[in-house]
């Protein structure tokens, strides 16, 4: 009979805590990328014009087409290397779940933007839960545009037990 682990925190997590990594750069965002994204997420209804009608978008406070806040400029890379590490540092336990996320938005993404991303393991805590000892990790991912303006900060919650 095996003993229950005292902690699910690994040495890899301790070594990587707070260290930025996993840097990558998106291809330039196109109007068509934004239009297709909006159509897919609004289907079967027509998405708002701010996402696809340049003349209309010019008349708004944004002065042009913007991407939906949840738009992912990193979809469909040509090269598919192993998943970038950086936040990294996987915890112990046998099961991993996506616990959710909080995104804070800066400037919107626009056609022509090139987004750079970096990630770090920000923090963790663990406590006894229904499934036994449970580890919650908080991974921070930061996106900036070509002008170094902050586009988005995401805190992702990973759950392991």
């Amino acid at each position: 009979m095996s003993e229950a682990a005292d902690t699910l925190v690994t040495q890899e997590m301790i070594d990587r805590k707070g260290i930025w990594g996993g840097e990558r750069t998106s291809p330039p965002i196109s109007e068509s990328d934004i239009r297709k994204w909006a159509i897919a997420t609004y289907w079967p209804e027509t998405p708002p014009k701010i996402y696809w009608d340049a003349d209309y978008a010019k008349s708004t406070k944004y002065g042009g087409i913007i991407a939906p806040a949840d738009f992912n400029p990193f979809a469909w890379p040509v090269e598919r290397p192993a998943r970038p590490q950086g936040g990294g540092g996987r915890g112990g336990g046998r099961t991993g779940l996506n616990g959710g996320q909080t995104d804070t938005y800066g400037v919107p993404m626009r056609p022509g933007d090139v987004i750079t991303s970096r990630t770090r393991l920000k923090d963790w805590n663990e406590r006894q839960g229904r499934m036994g000892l449970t580890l919650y990790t908080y991974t921070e991912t930061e996106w900036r545009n070509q002008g170094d303006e902050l586009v988005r900060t995401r805190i992702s919650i990973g759950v392991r037990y």
Partner: protein
Amino acid sequence: MTVNVYFEDVKVGDEIPNWSRKTDFMNWNRYAAVNDEFVPFHMDDEAGRAAKNEQGAFGMGNLRYAYIVNALRDWIGDEAEIREVGCQYRVINQKNDVLTVVGKVVEKTTEDGENLVRLETNVTNQNGDSTCPGHAIVVLPNR
């Protein structure tokens, strides 16, 4: 320009319009096509069951998140900003679920000249289950 709601007109306790979609396999495919999310357990019933979902393939958390963003954008219009969105994935999105984004205003503040409105949000399914509790902050214009 489209202003759907002004800061002065929002009260704590107000609810935003419900925003619903039936999430069938075609919706998941459309989203997979734009987000490059052809993950086996979202695409294939056998892979879904192998991932411990008895009903088979299940929906993407990212798509549910998109629905929250869309509900907020439809409510605030194009002269306002979505500043923050957070949620926790509590219940799996099963095939053909009807998901509805709901939201209620819980706080209004003005900070550094910005009109911030904080909401409690959720995504419920056709059974009334709370699948994705969370919060949002939007920045609204003055009248």
